[in-house]
């Protein structure tokens, strides 16, 4: 474990792919890092500070921190993660074909420089984690776009932690999208126009006249913008924000984006097709930090409860909204990782040897994207990719990396 720690530190902040974006105001960054760190070791974990950090300028700064903070935001014990899915996860699942189809053609979601073989391994993992979560939750139904959420998690936290995060997200934030029908999703989309109406009646009326509807924002909402942003660092920034926010926040951001483009919209021909076309294409150079701050303001000024008084929004209940408060409460009593590790280990040893399956390694597994397949990290790379493929490859990987990670860590992977 010690060794691992050291490696983690080496892989730290500086080499992270999304460093440059957030680095300019360096003074604030250092302080933020310290605050996050402090919040993580507080007992109980200082979740309020973590939420604030995730939403405020720059978000969680690095993938290293995301691997530590995202689980806290979702009340997940990283020392008690689900097992890697077995082969049976793919058997007889009604959504298997659709998942396969969507994942196989989701090439764009993977970093550009990633070799095809490595991407292929991740795609297989992606199929597995999606099916695993669906299998654990028969009440949840796959939708096209769910894979865009899953891939974002997978690329940052690795397979096993991604299952845990996705499971919780699916039962809370994404819950409304996972009904057998999309009526609840439509209900959430119905919050969009009332927000616009509060802020800019003229724009609202223009859009109503055009009969554009709200489908242009559908993929934004149900993928948390993962489907429409081409820069992964922007997606991550938004995920930091949404993981720390109310489930309706993606809709407030949608409203903010439309408001931001108000002039363009009003100059467009007042026609469904034209307005849909304009809005459904998100400009890739949006000022994300500004928009995030504005959506928070909008949220505070016109909270969901206020909007819900409107007739159109009264007819239906949203599970994501109604369970949110309880969910937030549940995150308040988390122990820091050092304590969790000790506690979970103690618990594990009283049952079977295998039960102590959790490993801090999981947290370190995918390391930093871009570094994985970078030059200087051959051995780590072998281990990660080898382990994720077949059992045969996994054994091979152990042989390759035993010196690096120590057998006690590696054994816990199986």
């Amino acid at each position, binding site marked *: 474990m010690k060794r691992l720690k050291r490696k983690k530190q080496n892989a730290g902040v500086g080499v992270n792919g999304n460093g440059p974006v957030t680095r300019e105001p360096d003074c604030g960054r250092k302080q933020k890092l310290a605050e996050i760190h402090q919040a993580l070791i507080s007992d109980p974990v200082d979740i309020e500070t973590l939420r604030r950090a995730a939403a405020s300028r720059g978000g969680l700064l690095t993938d290293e921190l995301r691997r530590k903070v995202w689980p806290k935001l979702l009340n997940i014990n990283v020392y008690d993660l689900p097992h890697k899915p077995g082969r049976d996860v793919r058997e007889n699942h009604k959504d298997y074909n*659709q998942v396969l*189809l*969507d994942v196989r*053609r*989701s*090439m*764009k979601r993977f970093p550009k420089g990633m070799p095809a073989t490595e991407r292929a391994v991740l795609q297989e993992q992606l199929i597995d984690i999606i099916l695993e979560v669906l299998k654990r939750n028969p009440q949840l*139904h796959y*939708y*096209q*776009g769910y*894979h865009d959420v899953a891939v974002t998690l997978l690329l940052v936290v690795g397979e096993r932690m991604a299952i845990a995060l996705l499971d919780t997200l699916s039962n809370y934030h994404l819950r409304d999208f996972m009904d*057998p*029908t*999309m*009526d609840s*999703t*439509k209900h959430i989309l119905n919050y969009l126009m009332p927000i616009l109406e509060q802020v800019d009646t003229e724009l609202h009326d223009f859009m109503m006249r055009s009969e554009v*509807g709200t*489908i*242009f924002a*559908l*993929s934004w909402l*149900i*993928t948390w913008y993962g*489907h*429409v942003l*081409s820069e992964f660092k922007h997606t991550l920034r938004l995920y930091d924000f949404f993981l720390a926010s109310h489930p309706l926040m993606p809709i407030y951001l949608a409203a903010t984006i439309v408001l931001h483009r108000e002039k363009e919209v009003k*100059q467009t*021909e007042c026609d469904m*097709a*034209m307005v*849909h*076309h304009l809005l*459904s*294409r*998100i400009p*890739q150079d949006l000022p994300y930090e500004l928009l995030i701050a504005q959506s928070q303001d909008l949220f505070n000024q016109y909270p969901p409860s206020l909007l819900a008084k409107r007739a159109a929004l009264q007819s239906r209940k949203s599970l994501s909204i109604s369970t949110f408060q309880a969910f937030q409460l549940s995150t308040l009593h988390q122990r820091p990782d050092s304590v969790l590790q000790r506690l979970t280990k103690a618990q594990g040893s009283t049952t079977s040897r295998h039960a102590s399956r959790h490993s801090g390694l999981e947290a370190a597994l995918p390391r930093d994207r871009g570094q994985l397949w970078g030059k200087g990290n051959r051995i780590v790379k072998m281990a990660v990719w080898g382990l994720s493929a077949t059992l045969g490859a996994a054994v091979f990987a152990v042989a390759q990396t035993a010196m690096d990670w120590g057998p006690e860590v590696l054994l816990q992977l199986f």
Partner: protein
Amino acid sequence: MAESGSSVEFSGSLTSSTLPPPRTRIFKIIVIGDSGVGKTCLTYRFCAGKFPEKTEATIGVDFRERLVEIDGEKIKIQLWDTAGQERFRKSMVQHYYRNVHAVVFVYDVTNAASFRSLPAWIEECKQHALGTEVPRILVGNKCDLQDSIQVGTDVAQQFADAHSMPVFETSAKNPSSHGDGSYGSGNSDHVEAIFMTVAHKLKSQKPLVLSQPSGGSGGTISLSSGMNDGGDGARSWGCSSC
């Protein structure tokens, strides 16, 4: 961006400076069918002139358009590319069935299930009050994959006849190649011909004459082996006249 490079086909055609004069007629065509049959590739092929390198799942509705000239008239063809997953149809795509002028049903010739879904799609259209008076065509895609064909031309033809629509077999990937070798005349673009056929139909109810699409090479456009050439011309349009 929902589809790779999907902004490409619009560059130019949608900026305000090149907006066609207001009198330009717009033909709205909705493209439906199971997930993965190639709806996105077909619409992209028609609007951008090439096979997209990577497509992604279509979430909700995507929109593509292209300006064409038919018999001297400039016409905007608007294609509404829809999500195939069932849950999207029911409550999402609905909105876009309104005011469409034509419907293109797509199945995948290498996937029998996608063919078996067609009755459900046709039913769905009916529910949105798009009856037989709205021109409808059937497109069997991916016929470049000759070795894995699961839906024969004759079966497709029978089905199309029964539903009074013409059927075309094509490939969004390689639209000028034909498995049976008998239609490989020159470099005519099949996908283009198909959508232009619909546009012609819309422009006029007169017997179809396929004019040369804008930018096309001189040759005659040959329609596919799956083309409905025997049916009752009154019921299924577009066939007996070619």
